[in-house]
């Protein structure tokens, strides 16, 4: 809920953010509330903790006894060794591919979405809301139904354009992965960012208009700085989805090992017939490290992050 109150300065509003929550918290603070927080935290962590311990246990132990019996050891790093050195392709290659895939797949959709979200929120156009609803509703399309039609387009594009996928794909097949990730991210990105955009008070835009600023100026000088936290926050979610993606890379990468991300390696860790499932725990943690670092690093944006748009100017 946005309450337009032009008398409140940005400073005041920023200061106000800090204590509103603490009041809400006081509202719930009782021994029971603290207990509830601890219970949630424990429930949410326990399965992962079990996985962490399993990842340091031997195959025999993992397959025959529960992880809690192994709290005191013996521990082994054998599983991690198997994950890091299990094939003739270096794990570093997969890591590099994942990074190369992830960076544009995060930057491109966010940039396009932020532009579109601004237009949907602040530029008047006939049929604007209808178009917005259409974009937002297309979130429901599962990636699985796009596979064949989209891949067909990439392999045999109309108008004799050069094919983007297949054996002769430019960039070794990265372009189709980037493009596909961008497309699939757009509806949600536009929907979320539009929500923040539209909560920024209209007075801010109006006064800038009165001062003679055009949309491009307003967008780049006022909106982008205000939206920085929101952008960073959506960025981490998009980062996570791309980092954990297997399907898009498999389908649209066109089957070139050159572009296979880490998830391709993780998926085959358990072996052709799933016999090596004890390696999955170690694999999960290898893959988890980078997203966790990114999350912790970007968390300061989260604090005043998404929806900080209700700050008034």
């Amino acid at each position, binding site marked *: 809920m946005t*309450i337009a109150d032009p008398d409140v300065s940005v400073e005041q509003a920023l200061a106000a953010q800090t204590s509103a929550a603490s009041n809400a918290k006081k509202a719930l603070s009782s021994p029971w509330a603290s207990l509830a927080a601890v219970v949630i935290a424990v429930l949410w962590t326990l399965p992962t903790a079990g996985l962490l311990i399993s990842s340091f246990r031997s195959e025999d132990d993992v397959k025959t006894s529960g992880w809690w019996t192994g709290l005191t050891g013996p521990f082994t790093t054998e599983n991690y060794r198997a994950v890091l050195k299990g094939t003739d392709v270096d794990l570093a290659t997969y890591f590099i591919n994942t990074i190369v895939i992830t960076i544009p797949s995060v930057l491109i959709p966010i940039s396009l979405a932020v532009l579109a979200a601004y237009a949907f929120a602040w530029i008047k156009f006939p049929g604007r809301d209808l178009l917005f609803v259409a974009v937002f509703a297309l979130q429901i399309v599962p990636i699985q139904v796009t596979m064949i039609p989209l891949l067909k387009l990439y392999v045999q594009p109309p108008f004799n354009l050069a094919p983007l996928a297949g054996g002769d794909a430019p960039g070794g097949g990265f372009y189709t992965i980037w493009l596909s990730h961008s497309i699939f991210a757009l509806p949600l990105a536009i929907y979320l960012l539009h929500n923040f955009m539209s909560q920024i008070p209209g007075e801010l835009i109006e006064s800038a208009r009165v001062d003679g600023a055009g949309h491009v100026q307003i967008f780049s000088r006022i909106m982008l700085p205000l939206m920085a936290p929101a952008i960073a926050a959506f960025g981490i979610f998009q980062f996570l989805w791309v980092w954990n993606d297997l399907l898009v890379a498999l389908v649209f990468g066109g089957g070139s090992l050159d572009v296979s991300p880490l998830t391709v390696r993780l998926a085959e860790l358990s072996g052709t017939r799933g016999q090596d499932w004890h390696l999955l725990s170690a694999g999960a943690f290898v893959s988890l490290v980078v997203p966790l670092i990114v999350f912790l690093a970007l*968390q300061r944006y989260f*604090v005043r992050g998404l929806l900080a748009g209700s700050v008034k100017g």
Partner: protein
Amino acid sequence: MSAGEKFVQLVICVAVFFGVVALILLVTSRLRSRSGERIQFAAFVLPAVLLIAVGLLYPAISTIITSFKDNTQTEFVGLDNYHTVFTDSQQLKVLRNTALWVALVPTLSTFIGLVYAVLVDRARMEKFAKALVFLPMAISLVGASIIWKFVYAYKDNENDQIGLANQVLKSLGFDTYNFLLNEPWNNLFLIVIMIWVQAGFAMTLLSASIKAIPEDIVEAARLDGVSGLKMFRYITVPSIRPSLIVVLTTISITTLKAFDIVRTATGGNFDTSVLAYEFYVQSFRSNNAGLGAALAVLIFVLVLPIVVYNVRQLRKLGA
């Protein structure tokens, strides 16, 4: 390709992209008139809309067409596929399960995420506490399902347990329980996995929005003598209502589409299948593209109420 070449590709791609965006901004920045505004709108929106049209709308339309064709995609069969969907005896259970997922996952993950966000707000080690609940988000749905399969693993009472949940039951003196087998409760245990993942998403977004509640509202309320649960109920929740809607909507759509958990944990057996999984099975295992497409279209239709609700909110905002 060497690592160096890959990074060169990366830089080229990003540079070209931002070059184009900068060009759009530069060209349209000079426009001021009313018609200029329309051009600006088009310039801002078209790149995204075109990509969505090609990558999502076109496949969606071709899915709708496919849903009227037979399984080899050669002949139109009218409503036959839809007829199959609604007359199959198993299908009622699938619809019931889907309803259960869509009712429970968004509400419970949002509720837990909200409560947790409020509870740890400004607590010591807040960042660490949030990272704990966020962690499942960073694990893929398949990974999460595998983790929980370990938690639910069943052996009867006489044997050593591998699953944590049954170890707890056994320690407390109860009989061990086959969590994934017994209908309808097994559905709830699968839903727990999705909630476990999605609560982190809700917590993160809602925590940020709680911090953005203007202090003056809270002050005013306090002066009026509002405190405790009432503050939560009458101030906190209404203040973050737009974000609550966004979070609920996003999780609902994610839940409607999600089949990885069912696929990994039970393979749809023991009456745990959901629409999205049936769609997957028909399209990619049974080679029944027509029926699969009909199921996908059913999922499209189910999202309509959510869309309508959001349109109403949009109208309210515009008014």
